């Protein structure tokens, strides 16, 4: 048997943390992980955020992001322990033997240089190819990765191509110097589902054709199942399980892996519409100031009390714009919105306090939606003062009730946002919205930034609260699994129009229009061979290409 390309032994990684109100101290974030990667094989690293998967991936380039330091163990690449190498040798390894594809190609390309300059830079710098040969190789890779106009796309600047295309360019950048190992760090996570499968297929074919080995890092088990040979499951810096793709997907041994495989445990029965909708959006057409085209065309939807309307679509489909129109941040050009039996003023500045109170909002980024210098109690207490004039003991009693409702409890009242996890922060935002006793809450991608298991908990909480408070949700998301889990009605949006609208079962049952079909079929499924099947059966191209 041949030698492994990458051999990791008892790898320990530490970092310095700066907790609020405490002295900075060192913690260990990866506790002794070992694995082998054979040449030409693909190993998937999977886990939630904080599992240490990116950190482990970058250690194969002897790199620690931010304050992260490799504190112990061995990392052997091509028979050398790179942790003992000199900086000059490590520089030859980086960009030569081992290369990296990051999550956000948009941020990882230098905006001031052409794509070609950046794709060939490492090859030329490391002396692997002459500039001419490197450019020829880059053009061949652009073609292989399915980029349009491969001969000329290199002379463009990063902002001149789409997100999906840039992610492929990043893959070309990584493959250009003929590396032995590529570290893919969540390369498709930032893309729309419909774009994701094209990029995924391009990456998979490129790996197969070049015979390069890869570490594929992701939190999405269904994605990693499509490209990997083996999978390693990580949790809190420890290896939980290691096995072939088939074994991990079909016969997971550990409880944690089983939970990852069977995530989305929610079964939600669709409710039928009641007589009076709480919100009705009628013939809304809207455009942004200073632009010449409409981003919403004649949109009509209804939301019934105590129910959930899911608005789904890719980025740019107009779903967040719809939320801005409803909240009055963007007055529409035409159409009107009625809410709780009265017509809403288009501009929020002229709305009554009652209108504002009854229509609340929860955002995608809980971090930035809270004042970091206020305690949880102050954050939740603010709407209680503002809308109901509660003070002192009365206010505190209500805050504690709300904290109990979001399953956090009284002990959180004096904490600051920085001391909370992502899921806990989102719960506090939910409590703040509920404090106003709204009739309706707009949830804008509220679970997109969260790990699957945490997101699952948030969705369960939202459904429970809906039962207790009879609040309606307008749920904006690009994630169809979430839609299945919680909605009563669904509106599929595409290029500013409602493409398909109706009850959940009706919208999600055939016959489909082409776009809904594309959207539904693009959601990764946790089985082997799914990717090839989907690509073969597609009826239309995704908009992101």
């Amino acid at each position: 048997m041949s030698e492994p390309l990458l051999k990791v032994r008892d790898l320990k990684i530490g970092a310095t943390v700066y907790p609020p109100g405490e002295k900075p101290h060192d913690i260990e974030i990866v506790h002794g992980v070992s694995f082998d990667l054979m040449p030409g094989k693909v190993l998937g690293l999977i886990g939630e955020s904080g599992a240490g998967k990116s950190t482990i991936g970058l250690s194969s380039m002897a790199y620690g992001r931010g304050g992260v330091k490799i504190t112990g163990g061995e990392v052997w690449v091509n028979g050398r322990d790179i942790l003992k190498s000199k900086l000059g040798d490590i520089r030859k390894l980086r960009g030569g033997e081992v290369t990296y594809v990051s999550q956000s190609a948009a941020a990882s390309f230098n905006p001031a240089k052409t794509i070609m300059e950046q794709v060939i830079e490492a090859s030329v710098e490391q002396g692997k190819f002459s500039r001419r040969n490197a450019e020829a190789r880059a053009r061949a890779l652009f073609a292989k990765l399915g980029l349009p106009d491969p001969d000329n796309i290199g002379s463009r600047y990063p902002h001149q191509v789409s997100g999906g295309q840039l992610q492929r360019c990043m893959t070309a950048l990584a493959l250009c110097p003929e590396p032995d190992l590529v570290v893919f760090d969540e390369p498709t996570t930032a893309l729309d589902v419909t774009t994701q499968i094209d990029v995924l297929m391009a990456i998979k074919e490129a790996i197969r054709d070049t015979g390069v080995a890869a570490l594929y890092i992701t939190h999405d088990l269904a994605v990693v199942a499509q490209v990997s040979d083996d999978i390693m499951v990580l949790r809190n810096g420890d290896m939980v399980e290691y096995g072939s793709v088939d074994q991990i997907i079909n016969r997971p041994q550990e409880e944690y892996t089983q939970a990852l495989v069977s995530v989305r445990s929610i079964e939600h029965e669709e409710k039928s519409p009641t007589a009076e909708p709480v919100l009705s959006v009628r013939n809304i057409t809207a455009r942004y100031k200073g632009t010449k085209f409409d981003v919403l065309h004649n949109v009509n939807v209804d939301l019934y009390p105590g129910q959930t309307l899911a608005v789904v679509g890719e980025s740019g489909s107009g779903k967040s714009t719809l939320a801005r129109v409803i909240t009055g941040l963007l007055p529409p050009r035409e159409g009107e919105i009625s809410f709780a039996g009265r017509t809403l003023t288009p501009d929020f500045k002229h709305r009554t306090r009652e209108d504002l109170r009854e229509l609340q909002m929860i955002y995608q980024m809980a971090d930035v939606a809270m004042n970091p210098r206020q305690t949880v109690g102050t954050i939740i207490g603010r709407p209680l003062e503002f809308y109901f004039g509660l003070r002192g003991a009365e206010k505190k009693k209500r805050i504690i009730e709300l904290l109990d409702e979001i399953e956090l409890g009284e002990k959180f009242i004096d904490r600051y946002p920085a001391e909370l996890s992502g899921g806990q922060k989102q719960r506090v935002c939910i409590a703040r919205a509920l404090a106003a006793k709204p009739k309706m809450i707009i949830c804008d991608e509220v679970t997109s930034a969260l790990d699957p298991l945490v997101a699952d908990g948030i969705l369960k909480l939202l459904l429970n609260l809906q039962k207790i408070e009879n609040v309606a949700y307008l749920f904006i998301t690009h994630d169809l699994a979430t839609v299945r889990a919680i909605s009563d009605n669904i509106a599929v949006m595409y290029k500013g129009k409602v493409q398909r609208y109706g009850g959940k079962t009706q919208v999600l049952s055939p016959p489909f229009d082409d776009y809904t079909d594309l959207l539904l079929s693009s959601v990764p499924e946790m089985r082997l061979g799914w990717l090839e099947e989907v690509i073969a059966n597609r009826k239309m191209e995704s908009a992101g290409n």
Partner: protein
Amino acid sequence: MNPIVKLVAQRVALSLLLLLMISVLIFVGTMILPGDVAQSILGQSATPEALANLRAELGLNDPPLTRYFQWLFGALQGDLGTALTSGQDITAAIGSRLSNTLFLAFWAAVVAVPLAIFLGLLAVRYKDRWPDKLISAVTLASISIPEFLIGYVLMYLIAVKLRWFPSVAMINDGMNLWQKLNSIALPVAVLTLVVLAHMMRMTRAAILNVMQSAYIETAELKGLSSFKIIWRHAFPNSVSPIVNVVMLNLAYLVVGVVVIEVVFVYPGMGQYLVDHVSKRDVPVVQACGLIFAAVYIGLNMIADIVSILSNPRLRHPK
């Protein structure tokens, strides 16, 4: 039309408009100053008839608007009037002074700008280590000490003790370039020390800001050396704030060097202006003000245009 052409044209038009407004301000400002030019020329013992004659001769009895436009059109054609005190043609007098000032500013900039940017890059490369701290300490000290003090200290050490360069920076048309440079070496050194800190610290801050970006990590993972990362990937994205500070300092080198000119007895614009302010020679003060304003506005306009050109999104629209 390419949006960049439009943006640049806008900047130029705005700068011209601004300059026009400044010219009004200068004119009005010198008009409302107390005192009477005719009186100050002729002295306390002048007869009323002589005063009236001189006023008529100088055009001081015309309405202000007429005088403003006469002055403005004259200035546009390169005629800045005659100095009241000496009767000299201002354009000719300023001509040689201005070219001396620009000569000094140019050579100070040639030394200071590359040095400041290089020191800034060096400070980023060795961030929080001793070279960074040393650069910061020295440049801060040199900006904090009054420039005349630095001037005299350098004069004492280098001109008097070491006798490397002359202490008085006299130049005239008969000197060749080398003699001239030798003559202005000390004022150039002082000016460099004065403007270095500002430009160097802005370079450091602007590049450090960019060093947090994800594309710097990409460059690092390509195995590039630290200096290549800073020079190739960080610097092109921090040009705009750096250029702005560089231009402000260049403007200072032209209009703010009065003290240095006095210390080194250099025949530049600053001295000329100060002389004539004390003699209340209004046409000269107006002319100097207009030229200084034009330099300031022009350099800032260049900074704006460079910022626009350095943005790839504007240079290469979708």
